[in-house]
Each structure stands twice: as structure tokens, then as C-alpha cells.
């Protein structure tokens, strides 16, 4: 039995131990699950869901919560709505409702905004969200006791900005003499007037302040309609809970006031901007939401609410651009950091960068076009200048050519005239010397007759010279006449002519011209060949068996003709000089000549685009060539 009891106790201990281990494991699991569990956050708003301030706050708040990476949270929103449902009884009903509703939910943090919501929570904390830290956004700072009580309380104080707003308004409207403060609550409790009076204490010395508090709407509108010049309205807050008609929101009231007055309206509510306020130092609800979310995140991450100091919310100078314009207030005169809402952007402001871009592009394009046009103009001018220069050059060349031609003609005429006029006296000398010889030779001795013969020989020489000069000069002036010429008959005729002329001289002529046909100036070609033949005959005169060959050869571009002799030849260093006019290599007594014959050949060939040259060795004969182009 004892053993049995013992055994049973052992089993019990084992079961207990197992249970304990199990609990521990479960607890650990639960804790680790808690760390990643969804946090539940409740926001208790004062006004309704549609209230613009609430909407802005919600946007900021949710954005703030989402800023934490991997955060998991669930948001609940509740609305006090005490303006529409005022009184302790309604507050009690709401308390009961919330208590019942959230009895099964463990809310991690409650947010209250603004003061009425906070007041409600503090009042009911003993049985509503008792263990839940509260984060508030309110105007009044809760007492130290309240802050330290329960699960903790912290938040941000939205400082009243009445004074800053008035200072700003007076700066922008320096002629202000009177200030009208508009506020009113459905409870008619003058709560906002009291607050404003506290805030504006001291300003009475500078301006007259009139409080238009809790006036019925028609009377209020009537008052604002009659405000004197130099007045300002400070719009604090005004709602009407009218039984006969739909209750008016504070923004709706503001709109009506704006429609009925000509004086500027300033205020402190960011939600009122856009409904008639010129501006003011405002608490921005969205920003408040963001700041509240930051505190909530700290608490959700394990920080105690009591350890987070209560902070003041920043106020921002905010303006309605349309109202600024209405009262002629420039943006430059606003304090730095001002937010200007409802700005109607000018075309410039709206499309500044596009305009700048497009304008820059246009300017660039225009510049390019201008550059191109300038370049084109420069080129055209340069071309014009060049054309002009060319034209001038052309004219000058023409003038110069004409002058040269005239000069050349003049010289030719001169040479021609000289040659002809030289012939007349020559004829006299020859004629009379011959008459003298014929008719008076009997009265002359041998020496006298020898003198007469010398005179006649000189006359012959002079006559020859003049004839050659005339031929040379005529060559230059004569028009070039090109014909198709068969070389063989031409050469043969010329050789026969020479044979006749030099019948006394035994020359062996060999003609081997291969029937070629050339297109050339026949007179020039005949003259050239004649001169070559004369030349050959002259320089073979002292050779025992004179031999003169005339040959030809053709190629694709030209026809080559040559006259080869076995005469005295010449030194090749003079090969070119012999074609110059009046150039002679031998003394006149040995080989009489005028020094013009070969010059005529060269000139004649040049005129028909051909060439004349010679090859030789002294004592080895010479070959004179003519090249006639095809």
C-alpha cells in the first residue's frame, strides 16, 4: 500500500513537472508571439468623422505608424461628437458604449485629440481603458498628478498661437486700429473668448478689441458687414447647433463671414485655411498626427508613457494665396517658412521648367539657325568677293592679253614693214650695181669689177636674210590651216624641188616614208621639211658622197619624220641652241646662212602642237626630227 501511495505521488509529480515544462514552453511561445502580435491603437476624436481636422490628423497618424518597418497594428477610431450630442448624459452613454464595445479587446494605446476627448478619458479612466497608456494632442497641459496616474499619459501640447497670429496680422496690416474676435460654441460657454482674452491681454493698448462671441448668425453677419476700415477679424471658432436647420460647421460659418465682410480674417486653425482666412500661425493636424504616431511607436516598442516628456507642437505660418492676393500682400513680406496654400500657379510657375527647356531649345535652335545663316552669308560674301576677284582678274587678263596681242601685232607689222622697206633700197643697190657692171664695166679695172661683185653678193645675202625674216614673221601671223596630208608625195615633191635647185651638187637622196597620213598645217610642214632639206644639203656640201635620208615612223599618238645626213654634224651641247633664231655654229664663209631656217621649223611645229629637235655627233652626220601629233 505504501509503495502504491508512493508510486501514485511520483506519477503526480511527474505529471506536474510535465505540466510545468509545458506551461513554460507555451509561455515562451506566447511571449515570442506577443512581440510580433498585432498592436491595437484607438484614437478618440472630439468631433465627427467628417471633420476636416480629424481627417488630416488620421492621415498624418497612419503615415507615422507606417514609418516603422514591419509594424503590425490595428487602428480603431471613435468620435466624442459632443457638439451634436452634448451633456453629461450623452457622455455617460458613450462611456458605457465604449466599455462594452472594447471589453473583449486589449487596446495597447489610446490617443485623445483634442482637449474634450482627453478630458473624457481622464474622467473615465477608472473603468475605461484603465491599463492603457494615453497619448494626447491638446491645448491644455494636464497636471503632474494626472500625467503620472495609471498606465501613464503623455502627448503634445498645441500651444495657442493667438499672439503670434495677431502680431503677424498687424505686421501685414500696419494701419489696423480695431480687432474683432469671433468665437462661439453651441454650449454658449464663452470658453474660446476666455482663452482669447487671456492670450490677447496687453493688446488693448495698441488696438481696440471687440469680442463677437455667441452671436446668432444673422446678427454676426450683420456686424461683420459693417466693420469700419482698419479692422481685422480674428476667427477663433464658431459653430451653431440650430434646431430649425442643419447645424453649421465652423468652416461654413467662416465662409459666410468671408462673404459678408471686406476686412481680412486671420485665425489659428489649419482646417480653416481655404475657407476665408488670410492666414495665421496654425497647428497643422496632419503634422500633429505624425508627431502623435511617433510617441505611440515608442510606447508600442516598450517605452513607458511616463518616461516620454510632453512636447509642444510646432506652429506654422500658413496662408491662403487667394486671400493674400485679395489684400495685396506679397509673398515676400511673409515670415520665413510660411506655407502658402491654394496657390494658383501662374503659367510661368506651373510650366517653368518646360518653358525654360523649350525656350532654351528654341534659343539653341535659333542660335544654330542664326549661325548657319551668318555662315551662309559669309560664304556667299566670300563667294561674291571671289567671283568679283575672278571677274576682275578675267578682265585684267583680257586687257593684258589684248594689250599683248596689240603689241605683238604691232611688232609683226613692224618686222614686216621693215623687211619690205629694206627690200626697196636693196633693189636699188642691186639694180644700179648691175647697170653699172653692164654699161660701165669697160671703164672699171678688175678691182672695181670685184667690188661690184661683192656688192651684188652682199645684196643676195641681204635679200635672203630679209626673205627668211619675212617667212618667220609671216609664220606667226598666218592663220593655221590644218589639212589631211599624205606624207610620201609631199616629201617626194620637196626632194625633187631640192634636186632641181642643187642640180650641180651630187646628193644621194633616199626617201623611205611609209605612206603615213597626218593632219597638219601643210604650209608649215612643207616649210619645215624644206628647211631641214636645205640644212642637210648645206652641211653635206663638203662631204665626198653626200647622202640624205628622209624617213618616218608612226605610233598611236604621233608621226615622226626625220631628215638624216652624213654631213659635218654638231656637238650635242648645242642641240637646242641651233633652233634659236640667228644662232649659227659655223662661220658664214664656210656655211652661209641666215640663222633663221631652224627657228622657222621649230616655230611652225610648235604652232601645230608638234616638236622639232636634232641629234648628232661632230663628223658623224645629224638627224633632224619632226614630231606631228595625231
Amino acid at each position, binding site marked *: 500500500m505504501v509503495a502504491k501511495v508512493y508510486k501514485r505521488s511520483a506519477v503526480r509529480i511527474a505529471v506536474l513537472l510535465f505540466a510545468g515544462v509545458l506551461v513554460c514552453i507555451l509561455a515562451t511561445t506566447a511571449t515570442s508571439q506577443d512581440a510580433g502580435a498585432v498592436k491595437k491603437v484607438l484614437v478618440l476624436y472630439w468631433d465627427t468623422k467628417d471633420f476636416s481636422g480629424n481627417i488630416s490628423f488620421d492621415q498624418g497618424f497612419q503615415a507615422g505608424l507606417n514609418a516603422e518597418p514591419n509594424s503590425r497594428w490595428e487602428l480603431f477610431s471613435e468620435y466624442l461628437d459632443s457638439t451634436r450630442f452634448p451633456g453629461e448624459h450623452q457622455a455617460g452613454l458613450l462611456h458605457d458604449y465604449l466599455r462594452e464595445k472594447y471589453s473583449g479587446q486589449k487596446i495597447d494605446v489610446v490617443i485623445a485629440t483634442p482637449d474634450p476627448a482627453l478630458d473624457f478619458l481622464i474622467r473615465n479612466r477608472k473603468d475605461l481603458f484603465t491599463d492603457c497608456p494615453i497619448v494626447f494632442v491638446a491645448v491644455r497641459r494636464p497636471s503632474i498628478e494626472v500625467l503620472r496616474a495609471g498606465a501613464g499619459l503623455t502627448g503634445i501640447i498645441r500651444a495657442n498661437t493667438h499672439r503670434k497670429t495677431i502680431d503677424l496680422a498687424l505686421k501685414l496690416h500696419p494701419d489696423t486700429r480695431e480687432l474683432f474676435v469671433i468665437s462661439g460654441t453651441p454650449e454658449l460657454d464663452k470658453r474660446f473668448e476666455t482663452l482669447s482674452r487671456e492670450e490677447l491681454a496687453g493688446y488693448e493698448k495698441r488696438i481696440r478689441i471687440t469680442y463677437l462671441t455667441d452671436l446668432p448668425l444673422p446678427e454676426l453677419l450683420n456686424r461683420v458687414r459693417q466693420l469700419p476700415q482698419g479692422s481685422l477679424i480674428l476667427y477663433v471658432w464658431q459653430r451653431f447647433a440650430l434646431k430649425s436647420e442643419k447645424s453649421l460647421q465652423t468652416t461654413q460659418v467662416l465662409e459666410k463671414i468671408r462673404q459678408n465682410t471686406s476686412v481680412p480674417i486671420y485665425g489659428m486653425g489649419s482646417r480653416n485655411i481655404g475657407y476665408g482666412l488670410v492666414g495665421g500661425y496654425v497647428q497643422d493636424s496632419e503634422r500633429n498626427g505624425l508627431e502623435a504616431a511617433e510617441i505611440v511607436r515608442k510606447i508600442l516598442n516598450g517605452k513607458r508613457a511616463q518616461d516620454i516628456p510632453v512636447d509642444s507642437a510646432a506652429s506654422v505660418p500658413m496662408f491662403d494665396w487667394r486671400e493674400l492676393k485679395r489684400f495685396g500682400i506679397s509673398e515676400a513680406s511673409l515670415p520665413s517658412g510660411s506655407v502658402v496654400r491654394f496657390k494658383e500657379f501662374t503659367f510661368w510657375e506651373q510650366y517653368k521648367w518646360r518653358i525654360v527647356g523649350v525656350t532654351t531649345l528654341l534659343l539653341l535652335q535659333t542660335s544654330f539657325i542664326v549661325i548657319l545663316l551668318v555662315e551662309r552669308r559669309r560664304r556667299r560674301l566670300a563667294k561674291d568677293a571671289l567671283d568679283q576677284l575672278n571677274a576682275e582678274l578675267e578682265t585684267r587678263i583680257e586687257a593684258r592679253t589684248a594689250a599683248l596681242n596689240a603689241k605683238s601685232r604691232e611688232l609683226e607689222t613692224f618686222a614686216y614693214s621693215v623687211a619690205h622697206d629694206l*627690200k*626697196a633700197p636693196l*633693189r636699188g643697190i642691186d*639694180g644700179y650695181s648691175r*647697170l653699172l657692171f653692164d654699161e660701165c664695166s669697160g671703164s672699171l679695172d678688175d678691182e672695181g669689177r670685184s667690188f661690184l661683185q661683192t656688192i651684188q653678193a652682199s645684196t643676195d645675202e641681204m635679200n635672203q636674210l630679209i626673205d627668211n625674216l*619675212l617667212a618667220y614673221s609671216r609664220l606667226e601671223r*598666218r592663220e593655221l590651216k590644218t589639212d589631211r596630208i599624205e606624207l610620201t608625195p609631199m616629201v617626194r615633191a620637196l626632194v625633187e624641188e631640192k634636186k632641181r635647185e642643187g642640180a650641180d651638187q651630187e646628193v644621194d637622196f633616199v626617201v623611205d616614208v611609209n605612206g603615213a597620213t597626218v593632219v597638219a598645217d601643210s604650209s608649215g610642214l612643207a616649210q619645215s621639211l624644206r628647211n631641214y632639206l636645205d640644212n642637210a644639203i648645206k652641211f653635206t656640201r663638203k662631204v665626198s658622197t653626200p647622202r640624205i635620208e628622209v624617213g618616218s615612223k608612226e605610233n598611236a599618238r604621233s608621226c615622226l619624220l626625220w631628215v638624216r645626213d652624213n654631213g659635218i654634224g654638231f656637238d650635242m651641247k648645242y642641240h637646242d641652241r641651233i633652233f634659236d633664231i640667228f644662232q649659227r655654229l659655223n662661220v658664214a664663209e664656210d656655211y652661209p646662212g641666215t640663222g633663221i631656217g631652224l627657228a622657222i621649223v621649230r616655230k611652225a611645229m610648235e604652232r601645230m602642237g608638234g616638236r622639232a629637235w636634232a641629234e648628232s655627233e661632230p663628223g658623224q652626220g645629224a638627224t633632224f626630227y619632226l614630231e606631228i601629233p595625231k
Partner: protein
Amino acid sequence: MSQTQPGPIRPILLVEDRAMDVDLTKRAFAKRKLLNPIEVARDGEEALAFFDRWEAGEPLPICILLDLRLPRINGLEVLRRLKNHPKFSTIPVIVLTTSTEDRDIEEAYKLGCNSYIVKPVEFDKFLEVASKIELYWCALNLPSR
């Protein structure tokens, strides 16, 4: 040859400005026993003045020896007027000049000269020329009397 009439030996008209050439020509013809008298015009104007004398009844020359280079009115102009003349255009004209220019030769023949002879420098050749002129123009070309 309607103007040509039988009768005394008709003259030769020599139009030449150089006295020396006139003298040599006369001598050359004389040496060749040419019987025709030689009348001389010393320039173009003098040559044209013969027109009046011929109109007045003086015998027409058997031929005219015409130099081209003449003072005042040149030989080609004399030739042109003569050959355009209704009465005297048939008188044979022998251009006797120093010019060997193609231009002058062509122009002279175009205007109607009957012969173009280049004056030779050598007197011997000149004598030959004189003979040939005499033979052709004064003997062979002469219509039967």
C-alpha cells in the same frame, strides 16, 4: 575691150611712188626693147586723175603696173575704183609690189587684178619680169590691129 582702138602704140601706166623704182622699171623695159611709152602716176590720187584724161580722149593704157603701197590713196583702193569704173574696168592691171602677203594677194585678186607679181630684188630677175609682162600683156594679149 571696147575702149581699145587701133592706132599709135598705147602707153603703159606705172603707178609707183619711188623714183628709183620708176627709173629701174623704165630701164628694165628699155633693156627689153619695149616700145610702149611709160606714163607714171606717183601716188593713188595721180593714178585716179588719169580717169579724167582718158575721159577727155587720151589713149587708154595697154596695162597698168600698180604698186600697192602708195601715199594718200593706196593701190588696192585705186584697183577697186578702177575695176568698178563702167568704162575703165577692162584695162588689165598687173599688181607689181614687194608684198608677199597672202592677204594682199587674195584681196588684189578679189578686186579683179589680172596678175600679181612680186618685185624681185635682183635686177636680172626684174628684167625677166619685164620681158614676161611685155610678152604677155603688150604682145600676146593685144587684140589684132
